[in-house]
């Protein structure tokens, strides 16, 4: 039993908002009070499921009984729950000392759209939406297993963001799941808005360079990872999912690798690793070759580099820093700018990079090739987070080659590999030669000890 006085005291604060509506519906002897946020609720629901039944109901049936038989409608016994329900898009109905809530959230973000970040040629084209339930729908369609377990949690004191933890019961490693749940329960913030933020909150290490969880927008990748026994985290309002634990290989593989034949797909993966190596070492190699050891490559190359550098007044590392700065700002600008201005920016930038800088004697023509090569090969890395990380990694290499030449690059490569090998993703090794992951597609290598 909740009296009308209690109810109106509870919703009093909300009444200050202009989009909070109160309505009194009356038919014959029945009278009910309806509270809802106009901005959150679908009025069609109110019309079809409350107004219409109220008018149509038969004499012997009370309206309380009608509501009790409604799907998605439940009675609330504790008045303190009412405000939260209102904020979640429910309509609160007061009828004869009973309070009912009816789910009427108007969802506008459940349109399935084509994948843009992880586009594929032959694979499926649609990606996750910004609606949690729609995402669950997409995943369950791809993964119709009774073992697929979804656990809902709420994070953020203000945002109350819904989060769903998905895993295949029986395949998931118990300690990994426990670890993830423990990290989630530790999170204590006001607002959760992004996956990057969630990932940072879930990992203990503050200073971190590489992503420890895989961020993907593709339901097929999620299904594949679920079958490999991984845990998927879906956050409401974000059109992608986080997958943990992740290994380095995951960031270098694309989903449609499996659509090609064995040699084709393995060659492409090899190509990506080569691109990775080039993108992190090439600027550093340029410095080492020009300033320390021109004799490493052929004499002809040394001569042509020296020739193209004839008009450059600075040492090689200044040249590298100038060009790296231009290319990084160009990439950053083309992401942030609106489409129409973005085109102009890239055209102007392309002109500078192409000829002007070289003709002005600011940089050598070989450096232009190096710069564009570094930028292009960086885009080969399929997962955005890793490609960003690799953009940063090349700077320590540049610094070490500035001080120690080619020795510095080799030492940096060694330390880089040790850094990666030392990393762990939720207790699992991150960078290992024989990953030993379960092959769900029958496509990856067989498990090795």
């Amino acid at each position: 039993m909740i009296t009308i006085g209690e109810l109106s005291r509870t919703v009093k604060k909300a009444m200050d908002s202009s989009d909070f509506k109160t309505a009194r519906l009356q038919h014959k002897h029945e009278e009910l009070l309806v509270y809802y946020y106009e901005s959150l609720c679908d009025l069609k629901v109110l019309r079809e499921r409350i107004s219409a039944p109220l008018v149509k109901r038969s004499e012997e049936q009370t309206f309380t009984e009608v509501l009790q038989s409604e799907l998605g409608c439940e009675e609330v016994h504790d008045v303190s729950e009412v405000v939260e329900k209102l904020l979640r898009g429910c309509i609160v109905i007061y009828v004869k000392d009973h309070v009912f809530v009816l789910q009427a959230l108007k969802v506008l973000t459940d349109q399935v759209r084509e994948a843009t970040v992880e586009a594929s040629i032959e694979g499926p084209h649609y990606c996750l939406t910004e609606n949690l339930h729609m995402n669950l729908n997409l995943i369950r369609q791809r993964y119709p297993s009774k073992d697929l377990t979804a656990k809902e949690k709420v994070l953020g004191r203000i945002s109350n963001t819904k989060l769903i933890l998905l895993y295949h019961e029986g395949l998931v490693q118990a300690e990994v799941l426990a670890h993830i749940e423990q990290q989630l329960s530790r999170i204590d913030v006001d607002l959760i808005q992004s996956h990057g933020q969630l990932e940072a909150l879930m990992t203990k290490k503050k200073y971190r360079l590489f992503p420890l969880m895989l961020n993907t927008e593709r339901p097929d990748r999620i299904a594949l990872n679920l079958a490999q026994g991984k845990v998927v985290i879906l956050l409401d309002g974000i059109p992608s999912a986080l997958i943990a634990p992740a290994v380095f290989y995951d960031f270098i593989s694309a989903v449609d690798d499996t659509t090609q034949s064995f040699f084709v797909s393995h060659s492409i993966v090899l190509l990506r690793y080569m691109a990775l190596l080039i993108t992190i070492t090439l600027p550093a190699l340029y410095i080492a070759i020009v300033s320390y050891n021109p004799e490493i490559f052929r004499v002809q190359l040394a001569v042509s580099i020296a020739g193209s550098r004839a008009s450059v007044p600075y040492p090689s590392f200044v040249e590298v820093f100038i060009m790296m700065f231009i290319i990084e700002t160009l990439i950053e600008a083309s992401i942030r700018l609106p489409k129409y201005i973005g085109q102009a920016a890239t055209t102007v930038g392309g002109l500078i990079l192409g000829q002007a800088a070289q003709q002005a004697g600011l940089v050598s023509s070989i450096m232009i090739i190096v710069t564009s090569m570094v930028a292009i090969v960086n885009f080969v890395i399929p997962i955005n987070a890793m490609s960003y990380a690799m953009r940063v990694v090349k700077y320590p290499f540049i610094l070490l080659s500035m001080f120690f030449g080619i020795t510095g690059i080799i030492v940096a490569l060694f330390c880089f590999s040790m850094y990666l090998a030392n990393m762990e993703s939720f207790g699992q090794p991150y960078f290992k030669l024989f990953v030993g992951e379960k092959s769900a597609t029958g496509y990856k290598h067989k498990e090795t000890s």
Partner: protein
Amino acid sequence: MNHYRLGLIGIAMLITPIVYLPRFFIEARFTGAIPAIILAAMTGSLISIWFLHSMKQSRGLTVLEVIKKQVPSYLGWPLHVCMSITGYVGGALVLITMSSVTMRFINPTMDIHVLLLCFLLAGGWSALRSSRALMFGMEYWILLCVPLLFFLWFKSVSNTMFDWDAVLMLTDYVKITPSWQLIFVGSFIFTGFISFYVFKEAAKWQASIHEAWMIPLAGVIVFCGFFFIPFGVHGTQAVEHYNYIWMNTADSIQLKHGMIERGVFIYLAVYMIISLLFISISWYSAAAWLMNGVLASAAYSPKKTRRIQQLVVVVMTVVAFAGGHYMNEQQLFLFTKYWFFARFIVDVILVWIVGSAVKRSKLSL
């Protein structure tokens, strides 16, 4: 078969040209180098197989855990300290040699102190990584480096100027009694991994019979490659004129159509990586020996243990830097020789103590 254990065995074999091992044998080419390596292969393999056999009894424990369980502390304590010192010194020797090689062949204008600092920072930093990281790193670097090394060997041998007569001439000097010193030095190829047996990953699966015959086989192949190829390239007389014989041998390799024309750069890159691996693995294991020997009784928190470990590495870095500053190449060569002797004796004592302790515990069961 455990590929981490194989990796450790391999890294001890591959490091030999950096610790002057081929040079010791080349200097003694007319005074019993070949019989010395045959004897060293026999003694070294016997020691390692005995060691692996006693480790097999302990079912996946590292040597540190076996000693803790079965060796009385008055024996264990000095053993730990000796193993730790030889480990640290070995890493430092490799580091100093590598810096001076780098200075000579890649950066002749650079001050050796700068290069020492570069290697010290990298080696010290990686020695503080987790054991898992070192094992994973070792795995892929060895898989990358060994084919390159074999390629260079192949390029050397397949050169039309390679003089097989010079190599075959050495067969005239087979029946000469070798010196004990050379056997001690040569056995490093076969027993070098013993002090590294502190990695949990490497001890996990039990040794099989395959590993027993792999040690002498791989050791002899590695030795033959590093010992005989310089004779074919430089001739039996000129071969002793070089301090870093393998650098000069690799410098005679020309890759006609390769992106890098001179083989020495590939060789140097491979050896920088192998040296760094050796340094970090030997310093890591030296720290493990020290921690379990000296500080075993005092139960420190993990954080404090880590601090002590870092402190030891810093001290070691300073000592190695000073060593690199004061030692010239001749002294380094001599010091390496003494290190080989010390290491051999300590290894034999360790294997004997562990072997007899394991045997005794088995009898008492």
